[in-house]
């Protein structure tokens, strides 16, 4: 067995295992920290696929941004030591059955399909290529994404600041 196979197995185990913890943990804060390892594992998978820039973006955006937001959300909306926070679930057994059948279907299709998968061999850094793609082929989506982020920034700060403007306009 090659070393890369072992490393891949470890990364896959970390990713899926902490994903299981995210779903089944009884405390919200545990789920959030398990999500951290899922994001890191996903970044590792990207590196395995030769996508170094996407892996960097994954670590910076997900771990540095979204996860911190989640932690803030958990801390601001829950009493941390309240163990009841996550314990109540709805439709658990039925959902497990449905999701299990769905996963079996997905896996069956994925394994049965002849993918003609031929890995492209170049392992050069993809950052420069992605940069020129973003500035040529994907220029319009790039600008639209910039506008979307600006709108999300303004909208999120307006929503989270308590809507003082609303009360003024109503009064």
């Amino acid at each position: 067995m090659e070393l890369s196979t072992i490393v891949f197995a470890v990364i896959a185990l970390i990713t899926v295992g902490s994903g299981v913890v995210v779903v089944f943990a009884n405390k919200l804060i545990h789920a959030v920290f398990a999500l951290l390892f899922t994001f890191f594992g996903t970044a590792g998978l990207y590196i395995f696929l030769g996508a170094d820039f996407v892996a960097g973006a994954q670590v910076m955006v997900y771990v540095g941004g979204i996860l911190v937001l989640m932690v803030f959300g958990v801390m601001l909306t829950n009493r941390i030591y309240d163990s009841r926070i996550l314990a109540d679930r709805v439709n658990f057994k039925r959902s497990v059955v449905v999701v299990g059948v769905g996963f079996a279907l997905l896996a069956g299709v994925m394994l049965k399909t002849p993918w003609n998968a031929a890995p492209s061999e170049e392992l050069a850094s993809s950052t420069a290529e992605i940069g020129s793609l973003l500035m040529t082929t994907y220029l319009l989506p790039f600008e639209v994404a910039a506008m979307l982020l600006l709108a999300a920034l303004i909208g999120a700060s307006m929503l989270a600041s308590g809507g003082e403007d609303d009360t003024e306009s109503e009064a």
Partner: protein
Amino acid sequence: MIGLEHYLIISAMLFSLGILAVSTRRNAISVLMGVELILNAGNINLVAFSKFSDIGLNGQVFALFVIILAAAEAAVALAIVLNIYRNHQTVTVDRMDSLSG
């Protein structure tokens, strides 16, 4: 040798776990975490096909756009959750039923 199917199976597992989180959790932030798992599963597929087929780097660029959308979605959704908590003192999605008649 690690093939395309390995990545697809990992992605399917993450997707199923995300669906499970969305459908069984009652806390709004847990539901958001499930959504993030689903987005990550889709991203793994995009990057995997970017390597194992002839679409080249286009798959990676799509994955980048998905990451951007996930960031915007998480920011707005958490702002909404904070606002709901301020107004209703709960983040349980079952109890947010003011609009149901």
